[in-house]
């Protein structure tokens, strides 16, 4: 009886449209309110901070309020592109490198937060950042740091020893989700504030890196995170609260002591915005705003760069070689290549506790079979540098007399023959004691260059009569296989530090209990040298030991060391003073000429 007529349809459509327009109107009002609220909040926080700011103490040599780069134009926005959005911007619990770069700066020289010490970009020595000076006790077990008098937080409050003590004590609470950091401080048992400007660290074991580690954590503000001393009364509760601190603390971005402050993090737009800390205790950064965009596909990132959407990004070797460098590109952009001492190296790890790689000759043969020069030339366009040992090749720890392990299939064949492998069945596959030479190489899935190197190696090995299977594993499973030492061969890369401690990787006890000595390397002489070096506080003699370790490892070839990579950047020409050093970039030095600041 009730037939659906055309007019019913029209009515329904009309009602839907009306409702739709009402909703849209509400959304638009909402956005306006949002913007207004944000503005109000900014004004209020500014006013509040202004009221709470303490009088600035007398200035020292580089006056607070001065600009870092004299005669440069302050202001402007710079947009930097990173490959992945960090999960959290919590300075204690972050897990990925990009959070590290944003919070501490790519060179560790402080960005949002700062630590007591940092490395000088030229000399690579430890210099004081928040600390003015430090003293090492005679027994090398106590370190006393004196803070600079002028250091303060971005809300104007002074940074005192209480903040330092709070940071380190909080880090050591077991319930805090930062196990990877806690591991380095197992031997540090006490931190105390001697007076508002002096902190003392106590360690139970002598260790040559103890000073660096004592000065290494980014300091977080106690007056914001723990005004009521919850750390003393109920550390677990505080730790849990800090664990869920991702960006905002109590509704606002936290304060730091660095030249930049966190302003906003728009997760859906993949963007973190920092603004200049105008109350910075040292010479101020030039840029008004520093924006980080996270673009996972490098094709998309390069296109965004060319369209003017970002000012700086890391290039892949292909992009460096093939997709940048035309005239249009060179007019607006600059390409920078530099090698960092902290870049680390990639390698193929042979399981030294499993046949046939427990035999040194077999490992050496494998190293003879990787055509590193050819791979570097063809796949990486000659941009990588060959690595021959576990240390930074141009640093004092590496032995400069060692050359690169050559590509020599003839020698490889001879070594394999010597080790007992022969093609007994005449089917082109090497055997020993009736078992064919077959093994599997495990690598993390999604690592494109490692996979290419593996496939080239597979082909080379097949020519000699060795069968290699490639087994990509997803990252968490891969880590588990490494931890359980369940692999024949693996591929990975390590980051490095300036004063590297080989104990983590090369000490035989690090094979136990999920240590980083996955391959089970054991050389008693290396062990002895490592233990001796740990307590050797004279850099000259210590580096001598490291060089000897380098020689021994070179002979043993527990890894086939592959490459150490460059940092390849594409930078917009409007950025000035982008200095590359062996420890990375420093955002605070950059500036943009006033005429170009508008974009």
């Amino acid at each position, binding site marked *: 009886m009730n037939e659906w007529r055309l007019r019913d349809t029209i009515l329904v459509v009309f009602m839907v449209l009306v409702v739709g327009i009402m909703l849209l109107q509400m959304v638009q009002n909402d956005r306006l309110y949002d913007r207004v609220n944000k503005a109000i909040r900014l004004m209020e926080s500014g006013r509040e901070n202004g009221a709470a700011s303490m009088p600035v103490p007398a200035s020292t040599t580089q006056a607070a309020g001065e600009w870092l780069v004299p005669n440069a134009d302050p202001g402007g926005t710079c947009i930097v592109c990173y490959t992945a959005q960090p999960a959290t911007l919590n300075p204690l619990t972050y*897990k990925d490198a990009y959070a590290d770069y944003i919070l501490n700066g790519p060179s560790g020289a402080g960005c949002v937060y700062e630590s007591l010490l940092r490395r000088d970009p030229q000399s690579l020595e430890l210099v004081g950042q928040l600390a003015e000076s430090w003293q090492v006790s005679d027994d090398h077990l106590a370190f006393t740091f004196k803070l600079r008098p002028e250091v303060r937080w971005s809300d104007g409050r002074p940074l005192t020893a209480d903040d330092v003590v709070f940071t380190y004590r909080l880090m050591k609470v077991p319930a805090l989700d930062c196990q990877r950091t806690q591991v*380095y401080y197992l031997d540090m048992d006490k931190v105390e504030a001697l007076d508002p400007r002096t902190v003392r660290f106590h360690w139970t074991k002598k260790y040559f890196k103890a000073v660096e580690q004592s000065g290494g954590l980014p300091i977080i503000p106690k007056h914001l995170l723990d005004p009521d001393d919850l750390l003393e009364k109920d550390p677990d509760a505080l730790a849990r609260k800090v664990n*869920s601190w991702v960006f905002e603390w109590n509704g606002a971005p936290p304060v730091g002591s660095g030249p930049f402050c966190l302003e906003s993090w728009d997760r*859906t737009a993949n963007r973190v915005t920092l603004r200049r800390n105008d109350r910075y205790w040292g010479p101020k950064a030039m840029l008004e705003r520093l924006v980080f*965009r996270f*673009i996972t596909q490098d094709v998309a990132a390069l296109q965004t760069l060319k369209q003017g959407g970002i000012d700086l990004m890391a290039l892949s070797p292909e992009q460096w070689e093939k997709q940048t460098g035309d005239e249009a590109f060179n007019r607006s952009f600059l390409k920078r290549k530099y090698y960092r001492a902290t870049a680390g190296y990639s390698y193929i790890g042979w399981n030294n506790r499993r046949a046939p790689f427990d035999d040194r000759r077999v490992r050496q043969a494998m190293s003879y079979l990787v055509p590193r020069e050819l791979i570097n030339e063809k796949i990486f366009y000659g941009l990588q540098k060959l690595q021959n040992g576990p240390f930074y090749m141009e640093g004092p720890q590496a032995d400069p007399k060692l050359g690169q392990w050559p590509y020599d299939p003839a020698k490889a064949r001879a070594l394999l023959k010597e080790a007992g492998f022969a093609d007994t069945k005449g089917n082109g596959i090497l055997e020993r004691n009736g078992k064919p030479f077959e093994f599997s190489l495990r690598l993390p899935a999604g*690592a494109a260059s490692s996979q290419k190197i593996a496939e080239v190696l597979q082909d080379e090995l097949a020519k000699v009569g060795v069968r290699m299977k490639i087994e990509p594993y997803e990252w968490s499973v891969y880590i588990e296989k490494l931890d359980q030492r369940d692999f024949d061969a693996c591929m*990975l890369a390590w980051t490095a530090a300036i004063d590297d401690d080989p104990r*983590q990787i090369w000490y035989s006890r690090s094979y136990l209990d999920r240590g980083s000595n996955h391959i089970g390397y054991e050389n008693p002489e290396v062990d002895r040298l490592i233990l001796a070096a740990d307590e050797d506080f004279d850099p000259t003699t210590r580096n001598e030991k490291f060089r000897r370790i380098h020689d021994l490892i070179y002979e043993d070839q527990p890894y086939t060391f592959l490459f150490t990579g460059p940092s390849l950047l594409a930078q917009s020409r409007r950025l000035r003073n982008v200095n590359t050093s062996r420890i990375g970039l420093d955002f605070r030095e950059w500036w943009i000429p006033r005429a170009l600041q508008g974009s």
Partner: protein
Amino acid sequence: MRNYLLRRLLLMIPTLLGITVITFVIMRVAPGEPAAIARTSMEGGGPVMQAGGQTDELIRAKKALLGLDKPIPVQYLIWVRRVMTLDFGESFFYHQPVWMVIAEHIWPTLQINILTIVLVYLTAIPLGVGQAVRRGKLFDRATTVATFALYASPTYWIGPMLLIFLCNPQYCNWFPSNGLNRQFAEELAFFPWLGDRLYHLVLPVLCQSYGALAYLSKQSRSGLLENLRADYVRTARAKGVSQWSAVFRHALRNSVIPIITIMAMILPSLIGGSIIIEMIFSIQGMGWLGFNAILQRDYPMIMATATIAAFLTLIGLLLQDLLYAWLDPRISYE
């Protein structure tokens, strides 16, 4: 009818439980621990790790933190109890409540899916009708071939090809290649912002819709054809009803039944993003979220995504059956 409804609703519970149990078991049985995710970065084309121990004790502490140290059945029961109060827990990776993370990521997916649905229905049904009415003629043949070709083309082929040819300064730079908005878009007023958003969504929506378009137009075409041949249409024509009226008033209404019931299954598909499209166009929606959750062993997120998807599918199935019963008087559930 009410009994039927009640019975179906009650039956949803064991199904849901079954799904959650299976997902839970698969996740726990699998190797790889969320506790052991090390600090890495993906520089130089591969993951770079920082040396330095995980010790067994630290892993245990981390597990206790995440609630993973209890036996597996106990963990499952705890999870079920929390889900009853709609508390899906806290994501291991984001350190935020799961529903908050989902709420952040659901908008892009919803936008793409709603636009896809609108586009598909607005184009497929008229297309199918047009084909059925002009059966055998050039229009029908040409569009059948075209939709057939579209149906057989995988999205992961068409998507990158669109990127190569339409987003490339070397060919035609017509569309943006990634993301949902251009830089600093939220400083725009509403309608320019909307325009920018739609501009960015053109390619993803296109990629997602062509397959459904092909399928749905085929359905409507065959449905309408069947009805056009039916006796009652012949009777109507014999009585002097015009072709147009016969098609729209009589045949179309009956052939629309299967199409409307397909609509019921839209509910689950609204929330499920396509991982492939989101990866191609760098959009972070639900598909990307679920995919990353699997890779990061973010157990609460995986369980939440699977449960919500399953729940919506069940509701969708129920709706589908109910719609069938309502629209087609020949069917009844007693």
